[in-house]
């Protein structure tokens, strides 16, 4: 394992120290591993909380700030944070209008956020609602499983709902909006290589030089199937086809297209993938109006990409364009 670290057991803690030094606009509770925007709670605004395992940077801490999240809880690498963290964060970002939990759909995350909501309800009178994000079409038989994973859609959900929260919308309006953005989003990912979890020290799975995994998640898990390494053109089809088969993306104000790097794939390749993806959307009569190309939801040092598409209505489009100031996404301020 070749990584920039000291003791793997200290990786998350030391990385959070670096985040703190680099981002004075954040406040970090190291003991509880909670990152807040420095001015939280924002009075009168619904507090937005997300979080999850570490190893997905810039998700989740990179999306804290005006126009996006109020706080995130950081877990160990690929391990959901715990209810105490979430309950504590919930208490501290309640500006009087309640708190919305934006939960990535993984068994651990969902259960821990559930317990956090129970704790918060028992300990405070903060009103809490939760929306689970589950956009990954790779999980086909979602009714008989843990359900679709939350992957790329979180960027659209967190950005759009963040902007709406800034406008002063109510907790239930925001929960509703979050559900609608999530419902409008579908994603599918692939891996060229496995990643290496530092505590394990070797790659999670072996993938020969001439094979790739299709239908992966963001935790280094193997995908739905293994296929021979092929061209970007064909890979784009393997990702876009199941997305388009699962939902109608025509109409509205067009779509937000997100080509996400898994961590070790260069931007040069991601833009080439974007070209392939956008060409397929063109052919299907779907109109990309906003895009994001880069490593935003990563899986440590995995090479590969994830394509995520969100159909935008005019409200969502306006909210996407609204100012945001986070380490990972920033414009308008």
């Amino acid at each position: 394992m070749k990584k920039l670290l000291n003791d793997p057991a200290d990786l998350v803690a030391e990385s959070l120290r670096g985040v703190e030094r680099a981002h004075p606009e954040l406040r970090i509770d190291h003991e509880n591993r909670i990152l807040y925007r420095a001015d939280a709670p924002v009075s009168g605004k619904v507090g937005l909380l997300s979080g999850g395992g570490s190893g997905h940077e810039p998700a989740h801490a990179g999306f804290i700030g005006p126009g996006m999240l109020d706080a995130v809880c950081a877990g160990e690498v690929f391990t959901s944070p715990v209810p105490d963290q979430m309950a504590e964060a919930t208490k501290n970002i309640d500006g009087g209008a309640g708190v919305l939990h934006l939960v990535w759909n993984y068994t651990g995350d969902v259960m821990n956020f559930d317990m956090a909501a129970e704790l918060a309800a028992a300990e405070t009178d903060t009103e809490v609602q939760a929306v689970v994000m589950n956009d990954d079409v790779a999980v086909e038989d979602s009714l008989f499983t843990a359900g679709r994973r939350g992957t790329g859609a979180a960027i659209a959900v967190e950005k759009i709902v963040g902007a709406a929260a800034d406008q002063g919308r109510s907790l239930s309006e925001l929960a509703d909006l979050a559900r609608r953005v999530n419902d409008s989003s579908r994603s599918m990912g692939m891996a060229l290589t496995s990643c290496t979890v530092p505590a394990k020290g070797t790659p999670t799975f072996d993938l020969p030089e001439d094979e790739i995994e299709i239908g992966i998640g963001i935790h280094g898990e193997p995908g739905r199937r293994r296929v021979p390494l092929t061209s970007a053109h064909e890979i784009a089809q393997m990702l876009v086809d199941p997305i388009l088969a699962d939902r109608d993306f025509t109409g509205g104000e067009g779509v937000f297209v997100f080509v996400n790097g898994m961590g070790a794939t260069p931007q040069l390749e991601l833009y080439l993938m974007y070209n392939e993806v956008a060409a397929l959307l063109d052919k299907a009569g779907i109109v990309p109006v906003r895009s994001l190309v880069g490593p935003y939801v990563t899986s440590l040092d995995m090479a590969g990409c994830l394509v995520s598409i969100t159909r935008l209505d005019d409200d969502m489009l306006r909210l996407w364009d609204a100012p945001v100031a986070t380490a990972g996404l920033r414009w308008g301020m």
Partner: protein
Amino acid sequence: MAGVDTDALQRWLRAFAASVAAEKDALTGLDAAIGDADHGANMDRGMAAVVAFLDATPPADPAALFKQTGMTLVKSVGGASGPLYGTLFLRMAPATGGAAALEPDVFAKALRAGLDGVVARGKAEPGDKTMVDALAPALDALDAALAAGESLAAALRAAADAAERGRDETTPMLARKGRASYLGERSIGHQDPGATSAALLVAAAASAVADQEAA
């Protein structure tokens, strides 16, 4: 014997912590095949925290021990296993009725309450390829052996055997819960990590109680 007392329960948890530490890489390896390669690290972090609180503030009675263990696991593990193992112990606490030492049937009922908590929290059914596939047959075997008049030590030994069989039977299963379910058919042919740690938990109970009886 005089029932399972706090000392025996401590020995159980310490034995479990020791076997988790010993099997840490193996558990993570199983999780790498069908999950995200952290189950060993998760359980080891949690059980190290449990041992730390046992050392620092030995609990007064079984209920306190279960509650504190559950809270510690919930607080320190995260992921899927944290809330599930945490709930298991949290639900055992009230089932002790405040006794200083648990009679075999009370211990068995407490474990059953714990399992019910796991199922309520995780919604897994037998056959879904989870820790439930080790725990459920273990508790069935425990109840059956006690009903047949066996000693708690013998009954726990039967439970441990059943847990190991249940664990082994997860291998051919198609996962329907947890991370492994994302793999669909590809989850078949791999032993479930959570069922594996659960079998260690039951084995640790059997050895702790056997020690108590021998003492």
